[in-house]
């Protein structure tokens, strides 16, 4: 881990609560880390989990999703949908090779400028400790194995006639998640 690694955090926030809370933090001149870039959406309910995956893919080391407190959503229920979605998405995120500690989910209301500053600073500190998220880059940069990449797969899959034992190889068809980690030689995830 570099000595002065500055994490890059993308934040998907709702317009009515968190964005306004962040405005309030600004009006109150609350100092906070400069690593966060906010993408404004009308409601956390609008957030597709693929936005989060895409953000990681495109270079974010951490992602914040923040909206209104339960029962206070400007559109009544959007934040509940977001919460449910992300409860399930956390597992998918691990499966994708992203440490779920890189994703922060918070409720910040329009009057909670201080809380937004805390969320930003805590997330930046936490992600800084986790280090840069470069699993996808390393995967992309990993050398392509010589020869037929599917040969390894074939010998790994047991055939009806019993031939071809499972060999430890870079890619295990039965355990794609593990295989990916092996290919990158143990990611930061």
């Amino acid at each position: 881990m570099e000595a002065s690694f500055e994490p890059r955090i993308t934040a998907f926030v709702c317009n009515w609560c968190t964005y306004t809370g962040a405005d309030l933090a600004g009006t109150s001149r609350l100092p906070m880390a400069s690593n966060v870039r906010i993408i404004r959406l009308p409601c956390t309910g609008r957030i597709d989990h693929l936005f989060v995956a895409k953000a990681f893919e495109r270079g974010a080391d951490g992602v914040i999703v923040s909206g209104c407190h339960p029962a206070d959503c400007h559109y009544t229920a959007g934040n509940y949908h977001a919460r449910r979605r992300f409860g399930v998405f956390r597992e998918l995120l691990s499966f994708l090779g992203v440490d779920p500690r890189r994703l922060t989910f918070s409720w910040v209301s329009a009057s909670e400028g201080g809380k937004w500053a805390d969320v930003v600073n805590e997330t930046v500190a936490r992600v800084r400790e986790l280090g840069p998220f470069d699993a996808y880059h390393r995967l992309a940069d990993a050398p392509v194995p010589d020869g037929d990449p599917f040969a390894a797969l074939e010998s790994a899959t047991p055939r009806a006639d019993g031939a071809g034992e499972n060999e430890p190889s870079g890619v295990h068809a039965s355990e794609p998640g593990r295989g990916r980690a092996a290919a990158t030689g143990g990611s930061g995830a």
Partner: protein
Amino acid sequence: MSRIGVFVCHCGENIARTVDCAAVADALREHPGVVRAEDYKYMCSDPGQQLVKKAIEEDGLTGVVVCACSPHMHETTFRRAAAQAGLNPFVVEMANIREHCSWIHDDRERATAKAIDIGRTIVEKVKQDRPLETIRIPVTKRALVIGGGIAGIQAALDIADGGHEVVLVEKEASIGGHMSQLSETFPTLDCSQCILTPRMVEAYQHPRITLHTWSEIEKVDGYIGNFTVTIRKKARSVDENLCNGCGDCQAACPSRKVASEFDAGLGKRTAISTPFPQAVPNIPVLDRANCTLFKGRAKGLAKDACGKCKEACLKGAIDYDTEDTFVTEEVGAIVVATGFQLYDIGREQPAGLKGYGEYGYGEVPDVIDGLQFERLASASGPTGGEILRPSDGAVPRTVVFVKCVGSRDPEKGMSYCSKICCMYTAKHTMLYKHKVHDGRAVVFYMDIRAAGKGYDEFSRRAIEEDGAEYVRGRVSRIFRDGDVVKVWGYDTLSGRQVVIDADMVVLATAVRPQPGIAELAQKLSVSYDQDGFLNEAHPKLRPVETNTAGVYLAGACQAPRDIPESVAMASATAAKVLGLFSADELERDPSVALVNERTCSGCFHCERVCPYGAVEHRDVCDMEGHVCGHVAWVNPGVCQGCGTCVAVCPSKSVELAGFTDSQVYAEINALAGW
């Protein structure tokens, strides 16, 4: 081909001090799709807006990005300017480099880099903005006012006088609110009821005001211009159309020992009662919890144990079998004027608050709060206006007034100042001294906040003319010692402890929002802060609006407030409502969802998640006109633009104008490799 114009604002020193605006403009000028980028000192000023207009005309811009303050501040300003220059306002967006950048960071290099990133993100978004037309919807020109205190009454009268109908809903049996409980008001010492009752009567008799008392808001559906409100009219047991307010039922009622809420617990009332003689409407309510007949019914008695009020009523207005009923009203605007309650120092507290054990948890006799003192001083109160202490009815010779009980105290959970207590405590000392000439009034204070017109002179009068003794310091304990109430305080100016044997103590307890405010706020989709007060849209510039279009705030529901301010705020909400009603159609933000019927499979996940019921079924027909399928269709008049449907659609067939998937991905990609 995109031709985006970027304008970077210095905002005087606010942005320029931390962000190198010229550098931001330089960087963004190089961004693909940007044809012009410049920086300027004050973009929102007239010359600033002229820059934008000129650029639109000269450069044929297809989109505009203003890097400056929050879009919540000036998005409308720049959209209007663009529209005047002939550009669709919905391709104009703001990049927030002030609240989200220059104001929260110190490092010029990092702040400038961040500002460039923010600008780039919005440029990519605007490149995908489509021109949109505002949606026009009809407006129901009727207003709902929730709360019938002075603020609610004022708002209702102003809107009604402005030519529109008002529905006024009040949860108590009579309108008037806390102002009707007061004896005299500061700074004029006007008799409170004398100035209030004419307004109450005016509201009651106004041809355009419909009054629902003993009623509460059950449900609110809809949106600005088109709210559907369900009102629960609680069972009164008295027919409002037959009752003539004669009072015979009250005289006949045998249950006479119920603690009177209007007298703040100091007096007694009957089970069937009006709260006070000047009640509007002058129609009593039967309190079933304390009624002999209803208590008997609850116990399962075969025969009704009483019926005296019904016997006494010559108009036959009493009906023991009434139930709560529901009324539905269609309105276009809602004014919330629910007022306040006083903090109770008892042991049982809502989450986050603590009681005052130091002052006895409300169990020490003759320790009362401000509203109770008002009832003692009031001519219509339980003591006929004589200051007599509750425990034994004796005239108190020494009264101690303690300010800031609960207020300004993070330990108790209320960090804010309640604003009105300094003034009403000064008033209380004057009311006391006017009635007990040789009495001693001692006030323990931290500060004296008397900022209104005539207020400072008023507080000085209490000290200089009426002899109130002001001691700067807090009271550490209040307890009973035989016949006196011992008050242990401290005088910080002389550095001495002060022990007073008082006959009575009046606590200026904190002002809090009404109970149940959170539930009401949720019904209205209005946000509230950690103390429960409702949130205004902007504390400086939009103090009477909320972030929910069509819902306005008047009076103490938003923050502690005195009468002149509540009245002013109520009139301000009326102005907003009348402005809203001045056009026949309302222009709505066109950022609504749109379904691609070709790819929609008719699964209707979107319908299930839409909080507004904006999704309808559309038939898909073949060439012969036979229905062969269904797809979803979003009603643009109902959709509020949350985008939840977009996120749940499995086939990505619905998009939200202004926040499409491709726009969001463009923003994410803009940040790549930063």
